[in-house]
């Protein structure tokens, strides 16, 4: 007599998620209200900042006589959701890869009599929550600002959470199918395949857009309807009627205008497409998941060839560190470059920003006035700074926590723990400099900004690279999490969130001191010129900025050093 065939329904997994969430919340409360309050305040700060920026943006558009319920704003909303869809496909796929193929939980569930598609569905929900968190944090304040600016009624606010819930389903399911397909068909070359797909998609998009933009008449004026239509024509693909991202934008616009029937129709379409895509991905999982896992296990025997990589030479260029720290630094670089999950998303942002700056160069010099260029230049500095801040929080903050697992090795080496921290900071500074300074230079040259500002922005970029690196590395040692193995989970914990908020505060303070005075004075002048006494404001402010950077470097590193010395593993 054999045991009966069980049928563990989705309710079992739902109960599992609820219980885990409840215990995590209890554990969080047990760690004190300060921590809970810090997380709430931190998230609130980010949301309020995004909300205010969006509100100012919509107010500006209204002043330009652009109807917020009209087609141009609709197209911008479509572009916004289309871009988010693209990011969700990649981030959903990458996170799902870890949950399906590199997780003890998945192996546990697969050894139980549970159908493969249900294991997939369970892991999918978890990865969807993680990959959508940033989307919610970004989109919620923006859409709230949109609703308030437009004077939207209750229907808009009622339907918005439903659109939020359903929108990520289709792109994340597509990411899941891509992930399953890659592992199923190319298990030994999945890293190369992933890179190839990301690069291909980005390049194809850029070539398509670039070709269109290149045909634009340089020097066209923004009041020129024909030129505006040409620009909009090249992004009109985002309004294709078959795209769920378009349904989201369209449905929200109808809801904002109080149009009940079309809003619900788009919501229903989103629901149908999302669930259909999810069912398709679960069906693909029932076919490919276990086979892919099986084929993936073969990769371990593949011979690994050590090749020369330029990045490995970087530690030897860092002055003032000993051989042991250099070895640690080299280890960090090798670990970083061999894990595409670490740098894949950064690469996407880097290329997108590069493309954005290129299009500025092509479109703006003959088009817009000095005031707009001045504002764009300051905004670009903020954007690069925010990316640095997010990257440091995501990749640098967890590094010390991850070393806790290897303390049996590092802890016995004859160099102080302080050296670990300096190594992490040096690693971060090198990456930040490589990322930020060329982008800032390109942005300022594209906008035709004067050399003094270029130098000032380069100085601000250096201060950001050092300050944000020290904040992330130092605070990573102040609030380490030696239990967790997943760096993304360490980054979104209490310490990681607080570090991110402090990083944003530092970014605002530094840009406010180093760059903003120049931009304000040049903006008031109207043509980029300001009287000589302007330097009497700019120079001391920049010095104060340098002082702020000094504090951002020394204080967290000192606190991290103290905590690391006292730390028991």
């Amino acid at each position: 007599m054999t045991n009966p065939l069980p049928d563990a329904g989705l309710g079992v997994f739902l109960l599992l998620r609820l219980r885990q969430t409840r215990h995590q919340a209890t554990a969080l409360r047990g760690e004190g209200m300060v921590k809970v309050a810090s997380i709430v305040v931190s998230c609130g700060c980010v949301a309020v900042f995004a909300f205010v920026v969006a509100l100012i943006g919509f107010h500006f558009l209204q002043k330009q006589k652009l109807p917020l319920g009209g087609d141009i704003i609709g197209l911008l909303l479509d572009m916004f959701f289309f871009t988010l869809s693209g990011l969700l496909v990649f981030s959903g796929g990458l996170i799902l890869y870890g949950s399906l193929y590199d997780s003890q939980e998945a192996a546990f569930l697969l050894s139980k009599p549970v159908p493969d598609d249900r294991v997939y569905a369970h892991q999918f929900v978890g990865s969807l929550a993680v990959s959508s968190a940033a989307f919610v944090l970004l989109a919620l304040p923006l859409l709230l600002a949109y609703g308030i600016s437009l004077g939207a009624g209750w229907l808009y606010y009622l339907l918005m959470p439903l659109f939020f819930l359903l929108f990520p389903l289709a792109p994340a399911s597509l990411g899941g199918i891509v992930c399953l397909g890659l592992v199923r068909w190319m298990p030994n070359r999945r890293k190369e395949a992933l890179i190839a797909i990301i690069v291909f998609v980005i390049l194809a998009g850029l070539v398509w857009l670039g070709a269109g933009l290149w045909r634009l008449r340089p020097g066209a004026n923004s009041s020129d309807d024909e030129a505006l239509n040409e620009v909009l024509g090249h992004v009109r693909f985002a309004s294709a009627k078959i795209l769920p991202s378009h349904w989201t934008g369209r449905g929200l616009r109808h809801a904002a205008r109080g149009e009940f029937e079309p809003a619900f129709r788009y919501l229903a379409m989103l629901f149908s497409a999302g669930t259909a895509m999810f069912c398709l991905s679960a069906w693909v999982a029932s076919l490919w998941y276990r086979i892919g896992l099986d084929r993936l296990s073969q990769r371990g025997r593949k011979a690994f060839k050590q090749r020369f990589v330029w990045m490995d030479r970087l530690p030897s260029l860092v002055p003032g560190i000993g051989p042991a720290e250099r070895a640690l630094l080299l280890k960090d670089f090798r670990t970083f470059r061999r894990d595409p999950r670490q740098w894949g998303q950064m690469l996407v942002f880097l290329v997108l920003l590069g493309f954005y700056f290129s299009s500025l160069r092509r479109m703006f010099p003959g088009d817009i006035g000095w005031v707009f260029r001045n504002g764009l230049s300051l905004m670009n500095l903020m954007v690069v700074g925010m990316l640095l801040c997010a990257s440091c929080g995501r990749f640098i903050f967890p590094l010390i926590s991850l070393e806790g697992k290897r303390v049996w090795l590092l802890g016995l080496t004859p160099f102080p723990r302080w050296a670990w921290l300096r190594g992490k900071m040096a690693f971060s500074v090198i990456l930040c400099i490589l990322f930020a300074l060329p982008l800032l230079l390109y942005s300022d040259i594209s906008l035709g900004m004067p050399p003094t500002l270029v130098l000032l922005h380069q100085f601000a970029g250096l201060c950001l690279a050092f300050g944000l690196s020290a904040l992330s590395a130092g605070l990573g040692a102040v609030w380490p999490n030696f239990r967790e193995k997943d760096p993304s989970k360490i980054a979104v914990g209490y310490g990681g969130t607080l570090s991110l908020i402090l990083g944003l505060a530092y970014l605002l303070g530094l840009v406010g001191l180093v760059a903003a005075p120049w931009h304000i004075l040049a903006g008031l002048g109207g043509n980029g010129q300001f009287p000589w006494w302007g330097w009497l404001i700019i120079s001391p402010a920049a010095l104060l900025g340098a002082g702020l950077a000094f504090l951002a470097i020394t204080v967290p590193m000192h606190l991290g050093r103290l905590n690391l010395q006292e730390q028991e593993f």
Partner: protein
Amino acid sequence: MTAIETPYQVQLEGVSRRYGDHWAVRDLSLDLKRGELFAFLGPNGAGKTTTIKMLCGLLRPTAGTIKVCGHDLATDGLAARANLSYVPDLPFLYEHLTGLEFLELVAQLHGLDPERARDRIATVTRQFELEKFRDQITMRYSHGMRQRTVFAAALLHEPKVLVVDEPTVGLDPRSVRQLKDLLRELVATGTTIFLSSHSLDVVQELADRIGIITSGKLIGCGTIEELRSQASHAGHLEDVFLRLTEDGEGDHAGEGA
């Protein structure tokens, strides 16, 4: 579901598994009867874990078939896994669940009706002495507490076949003794146990039959007496194991050349 009548609870027929150009397991055939404790020995990298993963359906054989209670793992995996439990060398527990909640989850995954689940949870809780800590979050468990909880979960649905990988690692002598008693009890009630271990003392004490694998090939299989005779050595299992695996590696080194 139709019960498949078979004298064997586990059948491996000509099972091979290849990783790229490397054969981790080659032409492995085994039949394990009801209530038999089969110990699987071999040096590191010999193919033990690969065999266990194939037996649990986590890997597929490159060639050959594996049946659990008559159900082919390749074509009838769900039914096969419904009759099997696996205790890995690094046991998995959900860190943010209590021990009791983990047991309830496993009972649900195996489709136990609520009443039977309650009875079985009460039984294994007593059996493994989980009362004191079963309402705590498993994150705070010691290695011994984790191991006991994992064993309790593995036996909840009264599996016909129990696969155990390195169960004695990190356990204190009292826990090892309790584990041995447990394995004996299970065998006495008809459970087939597939035990992979480097603890040769435990194996010698408990195993009905022992299989020795090296370089993916089963080089010896039988009772301790049969292995002694094969090795032409009347000593402890450790000496028999070393002699057989040295011979086996020599043979395969020749093959490889």
